[in-house]
């Protein structure tokens, strides 16, 4: 049976479960629905959950283990000379078997041993799917009938449904956490492989980035050096310029919106400002590369300055515009959260509006504003598309914003685009860079969260 068909049958069964559960509840009450502990619908839901949850659990765990077990069984039945091959070659053979079974391209010629294995694999696979269908439907029907049997007027179906829903919500909220852990681990293991080839000291403190490694021993000029310092200075330079643009503009926009603008202006301007956050970064990218960069270069030439067409300045400026809404929106919220009593107190002492803002409101809102700026900073550091399009590829170690620099994210992209061999330091370097980037932004986010939380306590 196809998996989708199975799921469809399961769904059908659960809607039947609702109907039966409801009907059974009404019938055990003897027509007096108000004698039931819960409304009949709750008994229906209760039956559905009992029918669906255990069978889905069986379904997913079966699918999770199926592949491994089937492969193991196939390997056991392979002829001796194939079974004793080294691991890497054995996995190639297994891949061939699976590909042949699925009708995909295989690496070499298909011999009789493989063919036998393929038919074995296919039959095992079919048996497994049939067993799965039987088992799942069996579990569903058992769950359905047990829960139907348990229905009685005193049964607390409402509370039971409430409890089960709670666990469902908990499960959903942990998905995000487990995904994060999964991402960290996947990056971490590749990064560890990289650090086995390149010492971490060379990576963290090396001043030269040139990731081209020699594929053959006699290749020239591709020594491969993995000093990440130029990349991180590039990232920091561009992010710094971006923050230099976004923080003052965003903060002042927030002050205008929360303190000066009347409600009509606010209703129009605030969403418009937030549209900036909705523009795809790739659009910002070609805006920077095709519009702003030539403008700056011409402008620079007329002043006798040499501005690279992939300068950090232009990239930073455009990225700064992109993160203005992060700063302004968060600052606006925290400025609005400053109690009106603070403003009244200041006005009551004869302070002007700007004095009140400078001396009372900004200091009171500062922790929240700092939190917003740090979030914007981690966004700027992790930003990829604008820098890929507008910043350079040359890993210059420079603090001059008019020169081209490259960033961590740009290098990750260039290292991983196209066909790559996964046993070379060049490819694995991308994961080390990703890990570093992740640690950096995580660190900034933790600080931001901490600052924001501290701020919240102040008015509680």
């Amino acid at each position, binding site marked *: 049976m196809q998996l989708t068909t199975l799921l469809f049958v399961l769904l059908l069964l659960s809607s039947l479960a609702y109907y039966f559960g409801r009907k059974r509840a009404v019938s055990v009450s003897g027509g007096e629905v108000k004698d039931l502990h819960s409304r009949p619908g709750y008994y229906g839901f209760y039956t559905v959950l009992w029918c669906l949850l255990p069978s889905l659990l069986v379904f997913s765990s079966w699918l999770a283990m199926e592949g491994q077990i089937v492969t193991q069984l196939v390997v056991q039945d392979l002829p001796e000379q194939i079974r004793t091959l080294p691991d890497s070659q054995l996995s190639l053979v297994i891949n061939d078997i699976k590909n042949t079974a699925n009708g995909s391209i295989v690496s070499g010629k298909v011999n009789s041993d493989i063919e036998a294995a393929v038919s074995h694999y296919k039959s095992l696979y079919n048996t497994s799917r049939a067993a799965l269908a039987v088992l799942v439907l069996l579990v569903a029907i058992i769950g359905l009938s047990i829960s139907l049997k348990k229905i009685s007027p005193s049964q607390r179906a409402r509370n039971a449904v409430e409890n089960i829903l709670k666990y469902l919500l908990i499960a959903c909220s942990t998905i995000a956490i487990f995904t994060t852990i999964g991402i960290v681990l996947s990056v971490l293991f590749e990064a560890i492989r990289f650090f086995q080839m390149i010492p971490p000291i060379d990576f963290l403190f090396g001043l030269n980035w040139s990731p081209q490694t020699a594929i053959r021993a006699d290749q020239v000029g591709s020594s491969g050096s993995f000093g990440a310092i130029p990349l991180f200075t590039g990232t920091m330079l561009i992010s710094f310029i971006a923050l230099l643009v976004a923080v003052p503009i965003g903060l002042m926009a927030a002050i205008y919106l929360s303190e000066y603008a009347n409600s009509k202006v606010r209703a129009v301007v605030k969403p418009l400002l937030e549209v900036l956050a909705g523009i795809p970064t790739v659009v910002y990218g070609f805006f920077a590369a095709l519009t702003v960069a030539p403008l700056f270069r011409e402008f620079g030439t007329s002043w006798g300055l040499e501005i690279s067409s992939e300068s950090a300045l232009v990239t930073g400026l455009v990225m700064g515009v992109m993160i203005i809404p992060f700063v302004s929106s968060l600052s606006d919220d925290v400025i609005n959260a400053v109690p009106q009593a603070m403003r009244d*107190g200041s*006005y009551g002492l*004869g302070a002007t509006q700007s004095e009140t803002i400078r001396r009372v409101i900004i200091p009171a809102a500062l922790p929240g504003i700092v939190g917003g700026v740090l979030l914007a900073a981690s966004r700027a550091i992790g930003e990829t598309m604008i820098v890929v399009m507008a910043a350079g590829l040359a890993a210059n170690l420079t603090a001059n914003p008019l020169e081209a620099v490259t960033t961590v994210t740009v290098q990750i992209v260039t290292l991983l685009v196209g066909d790559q061999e996964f046993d070379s330091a060049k490819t694995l370097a991308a994961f080390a860079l990703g890990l570093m980037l992740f640690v950096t932004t995580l660190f900034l986010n933790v600080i931001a969260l901490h600052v924001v939380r501290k701020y919240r306590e102040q008015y509680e």
Partner: protein
Amino acid sequence: MVDTIITQGQTDVIGAMDNSEIDNPAEVESKAITHRDARDTVGEPFSKDPRMTCRNVNVFYGEKQAIHDVSLDIGANEVIAMIGPSGCGKSTFLRCLNRMNDTVDSCRVEGNIHMNNDDIYNKSMDVVLLRARVGMVFQKPNPFPKSIYDNIAYGPRIHGLTKNKVELDEVVESSLKRAGLWTEVKDRLDQPGTGLSGGQQQRLCIARAIAVSPDVILMDEPCSALDPIATAHIEDLIDELRQNFTIAIVTHSMQQAARVSQRTAYFHLGYLIEVGQTDQVFTNPKHQLTEDYITGRFG
């Protein structure tokens, strides 16, 4: 209906002092107050030595009129208490006196309010300077999230009242002393003002208002968030401050009005019903509404 009342009120309010229409309170219906009854103020709204004079003040929040034609003097170095049931406009009226209502977009004030012969609603009036001369203490203590010292120094700093740090220190010390807070906080001036107790915070706010040497201090239910002991502290303080300042206080507590004020004004539904010496208002009210309120029949 309301419009006609306003125009009538504006024409005859000057003569309100010797109004003889309602001198027999028994004749006034105590329940359903009509606009007609409330139009004219009973008692003595005017003062021989006024610090602030208000004439025919009307306040609107959008379409809604919150204050109807109030005329009242605030005498120099007196404490005037404004009492009345919730929503009667006493706080709104108080906030007209230093133009705090300007911060509310929909609020519109009509009429004349003069302070030492300056029209405070004149276009040439500097609102910032006005608020320095008419200080304000709010219902809930609202110290800035700064140190105790910086809270007091806030006003003198923005107005440039002191030449150097030594003078500023003196102003801070004398303000705290006059607010009766010096001995409690002198060793921890650098700690946040928000860390003080409620009563201390309110005295800090009073000290903060005193530090800019205003002529008038407006207090909007300054004790409503405080316990009885802290309230007694503030009331003693108000009595002492009367030597140097004119104080207008809005309060919900009639006992407090009786304890701290020399004159009392009774507001009802946006109308100023009766003004008189505090003793007289509380022992022998002239208006039936005032009597009903102070005897606890409503409000």
